[in-house]
């Protein structure tokens, strides 16, 4: 059974079918990239899977469970983490608190316990802080832990957003253009981070325009054009696929 299975997904906006009967299965531990020209429906597909827009048809299954049109907070709780194309952080919270927000909802706590700050909760908090500091270290932001996220540079915010998705130790990561609009050093850094996740056995679905990155790290590539899946296969095959070349460069 695939970890994530999308069956015949349809999303229509006024006059446009943004996602048109797409089938896509991602196996546990796989690193899959979703590519396609601008407006081909990649981000809309992400948004449908993670509960940000309601699909008009089709099904989304995660670990065999029907998740179609579940609210985004439920999707997140079940173990699907995502990043956003427009870098998204909590600007007024510190970098450290940004990470902590992503863990606490996964830990069972009662309102009264939170108000009274029981010993158990204090221990959970201490563990969470340790984990958050470790992740800040990983992405090279340890020295900015107490800075407001809104005061970080674009690249730093991007790294922070990426680290956030790791906080709750999700099974599946949906990364929306992690290498876009950052410098070559950071592109390489991102690539290493994603590969490291893959080695740890995480399942990654990646939307990315940087072909070098995509071809370099993906095990399998899925190509969308005008909302439809036009090709699917290993990088070498995709590189030679006539329909893909046509979709990207025209006839």
């Amino acid at each position: 059974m695939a970890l994530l299975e999308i069956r015949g997904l349809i999303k229509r906006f006024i006059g446009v079918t943004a996602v048109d009967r797409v089938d896509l299965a991602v196996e546990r531990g796989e690193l899959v990239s979703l590519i396609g020209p601008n407006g081909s429906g990649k981000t809309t597909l992400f948004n449908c899977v993670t509960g940000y827009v309601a699909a008009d048809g089709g099904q989304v299954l995660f670990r065999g469970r029907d998740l179609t049109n579940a609210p985004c907070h439920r999707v997140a709780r079940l173990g699907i983490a995502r990043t956003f194309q427009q870098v998204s952080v909590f600007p007024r919270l510190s970098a450290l608190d940004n990470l902590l927000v992503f863990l606490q909802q996964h830990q069972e706590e009662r309102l009264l316990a939170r108000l009274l700050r029981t010993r158990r909760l204090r221990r959970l908090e201490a563990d969470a802080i340790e984990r958050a500091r470790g992740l800040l270290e990983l992405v090279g932001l340890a020295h900015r832990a107490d800075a407001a996220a809104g005061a970080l540079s674009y690249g730093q915010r991007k790294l922070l957003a990426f680290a956030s998705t790791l906080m709750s130790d999700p099974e599946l990561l949906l990364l929306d253009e992690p290498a876009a609009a950052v410098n070559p050093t950071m592109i390489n850094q991102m690539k290493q981070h994603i590969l490291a996740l893959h080695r740890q056995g995480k399942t990654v679905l990646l939307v990315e325009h940087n072909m070098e990155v995509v071809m370099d790290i993906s095990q399998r590539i899925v190509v969308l054009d005008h909302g439809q899946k036009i090709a699917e296969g290993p990088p070498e095959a995709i590189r030679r696929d006539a329909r893909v070349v046509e979709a990207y460069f025209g006839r």
Partner: protein
Amino acid sequence: MRRAGWLALGLVVATAPWIVAAVVPRQQRYVLHVLIFTALFAALALSYDLVVGHVGSLSLAHPAFFGVGAYTAAILATGARWPFVADVLAAALGAALVAALVGVPLFRLAEHAFAVGTLGLALVASVVANNWVEVTRGPLCITGIPKPTLAGLAITTLPAYYWLALAALAGVALLYRGLTTFRLGRAFHAVRDNEPLAGAAAINPLKYRLLAFTIAAALAGGIGALYVHYLSVMCPEEMTVALTVNLLVIVFLGGVGSLRGVIVGAVLFTALPEVLRLAPTWRLVIYGILLLLVVVRSPEGIESLLRRATASRSAG
């Protein structure tokens, strides 16, 4: 040094009735009255800030919850002769219930529509208070609300009431701190700062907004009850939109989302207009200029001025 400063301030606040009696014996009643109002307004403004400052929803419905609490207490204390503590609890519960009921549909509205919707609620509540004469006695007001009795102790004097109001303020401030820091506070702030991202962090925004809204309403209702027990009369004018304006001024000029800022705002904008009555002709002018100064010099409120002042002092 800082600790000593806070201690001194606490001591002054706690012993204010005696200080007032010693310093301005002839105006003792008046000054105490202003202090009681200030404490109650500070508590009310803190409850309001839970919604406006911490989950970032511009609710204009606070007078409705204050009014529901005030009328609940007034009716129970005069008609059914409920004991003080019971009617205050009933007032808080009643207001919370109304908030939970209207909150679900209201929070489905987008930002501006939410503000308008809550304004509508405040207006409806005010109309009901004026016109449901069988229950609220309308413009005739509910009178003869008894002075409270707490644990067999009748709170009849102004100093006693001052301490009661101060205790209420302290209670609200403690709850405010508990709710707005640590994990719960982080979830509130996540919803306020970036709702879509909060969703990705497994936070249900509606749940946290509703929680803050309902707790704030309960506190407003309880404070409304204390307020009518103090005044011994409840009229519809106490819950008009003017109250919202007052709260907005206190919270936004004091410092949105800040305990210290809101309390400073409440002190300035409740006590100051009273003090400035010494120069009645100039009062509005001075008040206006002060408002203007704060808005121009420090849009984040007085709190940011205080923060900068303490920061430069510790740096220098």
